[in-house]
């Protein structure tokens, strides 16, 4: 009986996990402006700068430079 109790708890815990498929009609929150990756131009330019500096790669993301992190 105790095993059944524990199994039931585990089953309930598994059933309650947050993994779910977002249906086409449930995408309102995902479509909000605050969910956009490009909502802040200043933050975008900073991210781009960090990215190309860290990756030592020039171009490809709209930012010029040689990858030295000096510009």
């Amino acid at each position, binding site marked *: *009986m105790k095993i*059944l*109790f524990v199994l*039931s*708890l585990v*089953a*309930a815990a598994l*059933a309650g996990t947050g993994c779910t498929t977002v*249906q*086409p*009609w*449930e*995408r*309102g929150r995902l*479509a*909000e402006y605050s969910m956009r990756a490009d909502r802040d131009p200043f933050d975008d330019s900073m991210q781009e700068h960090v990215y190309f500096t860290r990756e030592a790669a020039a171009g490809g993301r709209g930012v010029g430079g040689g990858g030295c992190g000096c510009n």
Partner: protein
Amino acid sequence: MYTQACRRLEGVVLALALVMGGVAARADGGEWKAGNRLPDLSTFGLEGALPAIQGKVLVVDFWASWCGPCRASFPVLEELSRKYASQGVVLLGVNVDADAAKMEVFLKDHPVTFPVVRDAAGRLVKDAQIAAMPTTIIVGADGVIAAIHSGFSVKEGPGKLAASIEESLGKAGKKKE
């Protein structure tokens, strides 16, 4: 005490499993497809007045304020509504926004003359299991789903929707004769 609690929990888990099983089975039922009868819309707790659809070709459009293609589709739907109203075609917009205010703002920006109801609880859209937003469903005068159009293409415009409406009108005309 412990045994009683266990029994109660077993009951709850069993009930939960049955409910979840039922929901899963319904979701896979695929009842909204061409050739199947449209369910009674008045049983889904929609907010707003439903138009009289008896013996008319019905166009049901599922839309939301956050859906980009819906913005493009509204003028086209309005055009179709005006064009075919005299031939017994009723257009019905079904909004699936969680926030009614957002729907109102959208309708202010994209005014239409056809009736719009809100599926606040999402019961109708869940039953329909639409594959994309917007989805437009053409229902024949006999209450049978004639066609389901997923999404909206600006390039295509009203072409396919108009063709489905014309086809349903043609069938309705033949039955009358």
